[in-house]
């Protein structure tokens, strides 16, 4: 290497660490609430009701709760790597954002299907359905990753490897 060459500096990871910590915690907390709502329905029965779940639009969907927990774990994994000085830990923030957006799109498409059933086909099974019926953490939490993706695109540009 030319001794006069200035080595490329790696960007600071403070912002991605804070973002990942907040995002990861929210996904994990709401994932746990969703898991509790889902298991409660199975163990206690359909009469089981969690006020917190209602307020936060959390459905009783166990598989969906694992998805939330998984997204949260990806973010937190990144926080741990970045805090231990591994710049490449930023990858987890990037992929966490992508997975969060992919699942938000999946949920929105499912909701679009329901919308067509309710308003276009007037299916009896969907009587009383409104778009709010399908609102869930997987959708509204994704607004944070979406904002981060648009705002901090440059953070994920190629940087020299360790």
């Amino acid at each position, binding site marked *: 290497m030319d001794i006069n060459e200035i080595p490329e500096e790696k960007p600071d990871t403070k912002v991605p660490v804070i973002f990942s910590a907040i995002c990861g915690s929210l996904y994990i907390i709401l994932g746990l609430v969703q898991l509790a709502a889902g298991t409660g329905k199975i163990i206690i029965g359909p009469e089981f009701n969690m006020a917190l779940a209602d307020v936060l639009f959390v459905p009783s969907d166990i598989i969906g709760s694992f*998805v939330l927990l998984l997204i949260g774990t990806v973010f937190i994994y990144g926080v741990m790597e970045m805090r231990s000085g591994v710049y490449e830990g930023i990858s987890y923030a990037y*992929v966490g954002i992508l997975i969060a957006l992919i699942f938000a799109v999946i949920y929105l498409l499912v909701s679009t299907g329901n919308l067509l*059933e309710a308003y276009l086909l007037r299916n009896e099974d969907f009587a009383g359905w409104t778009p709010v019926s399908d609102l869930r953490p997987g959708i509204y939490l994704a607004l944070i990753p979406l904002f981060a993706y648009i705002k901090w695109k440059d953070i994920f540009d190629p940087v020299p490897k360790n």
Partner: protein
Amino acid sequence: MDGSKIKIALTGNPNVGKTTLFNALTGSRQHVGNWPGVTVEKKSGNVSYKNYDIEVIDLPGTYSLTAYSIDEIVARNYIIEEKPDIVIQVVDASNLERNLYLTTQLMELGSEILIVLNMCDIAEERGDRIYIDKMEELLATPVIKTVASQKKGICDLLDKVIEQKEIKQYHGHEIGYGAEIEEKILEIEQVLAEDETRDSRYPLRWISIRLLEGDSNVREKISDSPVYDRVIQIIDSIDQEEFEAEIADKRYIAINTIFPQMCTRANDKLTKSDMVDRVLTNKYLGIPIFLALMWGAFELTFAFATPFMDMIDLAASWVAGYVSSSLQPEWLASLVGDGIIGGVGAVLVFVPNIFILFFLLSLLEGSGYLARAAFIMDKLMYKIGMHGKSFIPMLMGFGCNVPAIMAARSIEDEKDRLITILVVPFVSCGARLPIYVLFAGTFFGRQAGTVIFGMYILGIVIAIISAKLLRVTVVRGKPAPFIMELPPYRVPTLRTSLIHMWDNGFMYIKKAGSIILVGVVVIWALASFPWGVEYGSEDSYVGSLGHAVEPLLKPLGFDWKISVALIFGLVAKEIVVASMGVLYGAGDNSEALTERLMADPGLNALNSLSLMAFSLLYMPCVATVGVIKKETGSWKWTAFAIFYGIIVAWITAFVIYQGGVMLGY
């Protein structure tokens, strides 16, 4: 006019874009995927350009001409035996160094070579610089730049092909392997030259090098030669492993000498592709992410498709009502209404699910993610006695088992390949999807997507368990180590994904109009005769058939109607749903079919789960059986696949049903 005909062969490493270039040249729509080993058989197409009729052959990808696997042998034999006018080596510009290894081998074959630098956009984006003039000079071979996916550089390539054909200029290339090896090469060449009956298509120097490298395929080819024993004597006098390593070494030395002169690479940077790989191939997160994405795909396949299914249903109900009320005599109205529309209609309703599933699979495949899925599963696969590469045919099986079994050709080891062929039929193909959608949708409501996902996972789990079982019993041995190149992530093109979706979806529609149509007419006839009995009743022929089989399937929770559907499903799995449509006399209205299934006291969530599992695992369809025979070349293994499948299906369905009964469901 023979002079205006040119035959060109496309060769190159796997996943460098040969099929994309083939499609761009010929206007074909061959399937392309972002993983190595999509093409396992050669394909041909034609293009007319400037009064030339150019035949283009797309060969399977190969890293070298060492012929370790069937697809490599196909590529090598074609180049040597068919002698195309020009061999076009498609080279991944973003991975030039590795691709040049094949170039050195092609040059030894004495073929007229033209190098196509594909994927230049990726290399340039990364900051690599390739000096084409220098490359042409050093390799003494024309080099053309293309971006096949955007059809850039295609005319330049065709112009160069014609120019090469017209000037008929052949450049010979040789790599010096050092005094000791060269001496042996010469010795073998001299002995082989004495045999006047030898196949002159094979260059003597090339055969000699291959023999020194221990190529069993070439050894077999000269086994009838009168000089065979003398050649073997020479080979036996050397340390073959050492020679093989030395030959490879010399090739790499040659590459490393010329490479820095023709290319400067950008600094090694952490790209977005690296970032994604770091997470998706993480040893703890890789498998959960894979499962979550697959679940998302099936959730979407079921939930997003439902309104479109209902729309088809409504339109078809109207047609059915109109046709049935206006047709006379009564038997014709029954044939069209109960038989054809009831059966074929029941299958066609699921077209939206099929289209969505194939579109999503195409996105996963085109992005390069499915190759990662094979990578993250490798450790687990090896532990249970399966080759990591087997996971790719298994994933391809989600679409259709027939090409998936053929994709096993890329597996070098015969035992690994056989195990893969035998277990791929357990992977749930698109044809089984309507069965799940019908029964999961009827008995599991909003959880249907999850149940369908569960069926796909069950298929993979049974395939993996079966592989382990086969490895410790009938196909003993250890799997070969797995080395697979991970392709770069790419944003899948909408066009490719839509073509893939359409091709597979249309195949499903065509099946509905052919084999399924025949099937439903047969079932209708059996359900209507002897003449005078109540349609589809226990007194009809179909009733007798169902009752004959029922005792075998009763422990699984199936009545005679399901038994009949499963018998006809042996031909094609879609017929299971078509049979239900005919036997439940639901016309083509899937909602009516759903209502009748729910109203049937013999059906419930538990036996529908057992039925879905049985349909998933029992005997592969006729087309799959045919390809198993073709690929194994053995009736014994084909029969084994059939009976093993039936036994596994019976046991699994028995455990589900009887277990559920014991638990009080």
